């Protein structure tokens, strides 16, 4: 086993809200006096949050570790402590080797300086020496594709060029520990692919330890070998990223409409079934991009199938609501399929689900009873409410909300009094 490279013990971080950032001498002064005069009085405790509470973990050299959690769960605070930017209130982190953060694009760039100057400036800020940058310089320029503009001030760059250059510098870092905090939030899809590819290369080929935070769960699942789930500053679980993402999705109701795996070896599954792609394609009404109760959802599924001897296959789709109640369990007929790529799908019709958050699990069963693979919580989505011709705005009850007509008819008129 690889040696432990980071060891965090009992990390806690406390933020005083309001007071500390007041920037006004008088308030700080009176706060200070209050502390002196009545140090034990609990009632005067002002607004505060524990951004981290007693977090302990270990990371081994060469691991790619992801941190999952909603905004404010403490992921970024944790990474900031590890990268020495801020101190914990309690606890400690020990480690070996140089740390560098993949910066938010453009941090540490100076608009008036040329691309060439900025490559050096940014590289040094990230802790590289001159010699290290020089040895990577050509590669950086090539990766960013800005060689023609190397001597132009970066403020004249297009946003795309700027982003590419910034990432190119960071991607050629050579630290033992690389911290990547939500850098994929910017840039177009193509660029994000390029970043992800580069990061994978950094971790696998060069054996670096990567700590990764992203809301892009797809990327996280693909890149990481292990994940930590944070909730309100506490480390609630750690383990297989797929499992944790499922756990997170069940709790958090996030949209997660697509998963795709290019590499058959690392895709989720087992020797019989390997997932290639699962995707929910909403058929948005009137060109919007919000799934509401009028939206039909097409589920598409592709997987590599290696049939166990003499068996047939049933694919079942389970839809759960956030509370974990199963809304439906539908399955395909029995198929006898050959070894190879299989595709399938189903349609969740419009005007069927009530508003709320849902997640889907897919089950692969052979010979009606033996479960080959359960792809748990692989997709999740939210359905918004939509109402017409009604003046009532309370929560519409019920698990489903089908559009069966309910009719009324006048049968018999009573004579006027």
């Amino acid at each position, binding site marked *: 086993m690889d040696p432990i490279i980071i060891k965090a013990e009992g990390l806690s971080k406390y933020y005083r809200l309001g007071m500390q*950032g007041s920037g006004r001498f008088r308030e*700080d002064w009176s706060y200070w006096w209050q502390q002196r005069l009545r140090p034990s009085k609990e009632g005067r405790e002002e607004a505060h949050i524990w951004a981290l509470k007693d977090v302990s973990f270990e990371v081994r050299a060469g691991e790619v570790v992801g941190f999952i959690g909603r905004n404010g769960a403490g992921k970024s605070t944790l990474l900031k402590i590890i*990268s020495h930017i*801020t101190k914990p209130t309690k606890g400690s982190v020990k*480690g070996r080797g140089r740390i560098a953060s993949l910066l938010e694009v453009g941090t540490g760039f*100076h608009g008036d300086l040329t691309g060439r*100057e900025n490559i050096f400036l940014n590289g040094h800020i990230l802790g590289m020496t001159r010699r290290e940058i020089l040895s990577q310089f050509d590669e950086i320029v090539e990766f960013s594709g800005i060689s023609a503009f190397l001597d132009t001030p970066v403020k004249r760059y297009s946003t795309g060029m700027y982003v590419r250059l910034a990432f190119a510098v960071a991607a050629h870092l050579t630290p033992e520990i690389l911290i990547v905090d939500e850098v994929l939030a910017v840039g177009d899809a193509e660029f994000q692919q390029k970043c992800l590819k580069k990061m994978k290369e950094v971790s696998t080929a060069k054996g670096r330890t990567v700590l990764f935070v992203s809301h892009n769960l797809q990327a996280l699942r693909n890149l990481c070998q292990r994940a930590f789930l944070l909730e309100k500053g506490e480390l609630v679980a750690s383990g297989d990223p797929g499992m944790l993402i499922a756990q997170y999705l069940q709790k958090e109701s996030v949209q997660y409409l697509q998963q795709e795996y290019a590499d058959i070896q690392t895709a989720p599954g087992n020797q019989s079934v390997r997932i290639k792609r699962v995707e929910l394609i909403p058929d948005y009404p009137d060109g919007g991009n919000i799934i509401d109760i009028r939206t039909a959802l097409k589920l598409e599924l592709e997987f590599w199938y290696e049939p166990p001897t003499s068996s047939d296959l049933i694919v079942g789709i389970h839809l759960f609501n956030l509370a974990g109640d199963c809304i439906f369990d539908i399955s395909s007929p029995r198929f006898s399929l050959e070894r190879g790529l299989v595709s399938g799908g189903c349609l969740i019709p419009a005007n069927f689900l009530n508003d709320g958050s849902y997640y889907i699990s897919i089950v692969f069963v052979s010979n009606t009873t033996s479960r080959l693979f359960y792809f748990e919580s692989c997709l999740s989505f939210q359905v918004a409410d939509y109402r017409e011709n009604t003046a009532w705005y309370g929560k519409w009850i019920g698990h489903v909300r089908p559009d069966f007509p309910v009719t009324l008819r006048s049968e018999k008129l009573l004579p006027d009094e």
Partner: protein
Amino acid sequence: MKETDEWEWEVDSEYHWFRWELGSIVRYRDLLFRLVRRDLLANYKQTVLGPFWILLQPILTTLIYWLIFARIVKVSTDGVPALLFYLSGVICWNFFSDCLSGAMYTFLTNSAIFSKVYFPRLIVPVSSMLAHSMRLLVQMILFFCIYFLFYASGGVPGPGWGWLFLPVLLLMTGLFGLGAGLIISVLTAKYRDLDYTLQFVLRIWMFASPVFYPARIVTGGEKLWFWLNPLTPLIETFRAICFGREVVSYDYLFICVFDILVILVCGIALFKRHELKLTDIV
């Protein structure tokens, strides 16, 4: 397998006054020099005259002082050619105030990058001081060019052994600015209004230092306070050496060196103790 306590670094919850990690500045020297370069390059981008401003700025200030104080108000320059007298004062004062303001905005202007990446924060004010030292060097060359013009016409005594002492005086001036700037940088990060007060204090401070008048004219009860301003002995000794006068008082010079070292130590200690705390505030 080694899973012993052989850690290379540790982040704990303690804040230290005297863990300065000056070695890390050496490790990050490439960054230090790059920041100096950035300072010098970026400051004069998109100006017509470019780096000539380094020379133009003290020349213009000197000419204004000359016009006001030598021609109109007629303040004595102690028998020293007025241009040289003002130029020496302006160069010393500018170096001090540049080092001070270079350090005092450390946290405010770099908050974005400080919250994203770690490097020894002390690099920023030190790099700013080094950049200003480069400017100082250019300005000193200008000063001596003019000096030798006057020397040719017999207005000043010319070089002597005392000149070897000039770099020390200038170094002390810079360190004074740096030390005071470090203290102020921590305070302004916490209390923004200090910034406005300081602009004002700096202006008064200049009038209270012998920039455009000789120290000799301050007498009576103010004299003691006047000389306890570390800039007074520094500027006065600088002039005494250049213009062949008696060094006014060695006592005050020693006090001033002692003060500056104390301020510098306090500045670095305060800065190092707060450099990470302030990330949570700014």
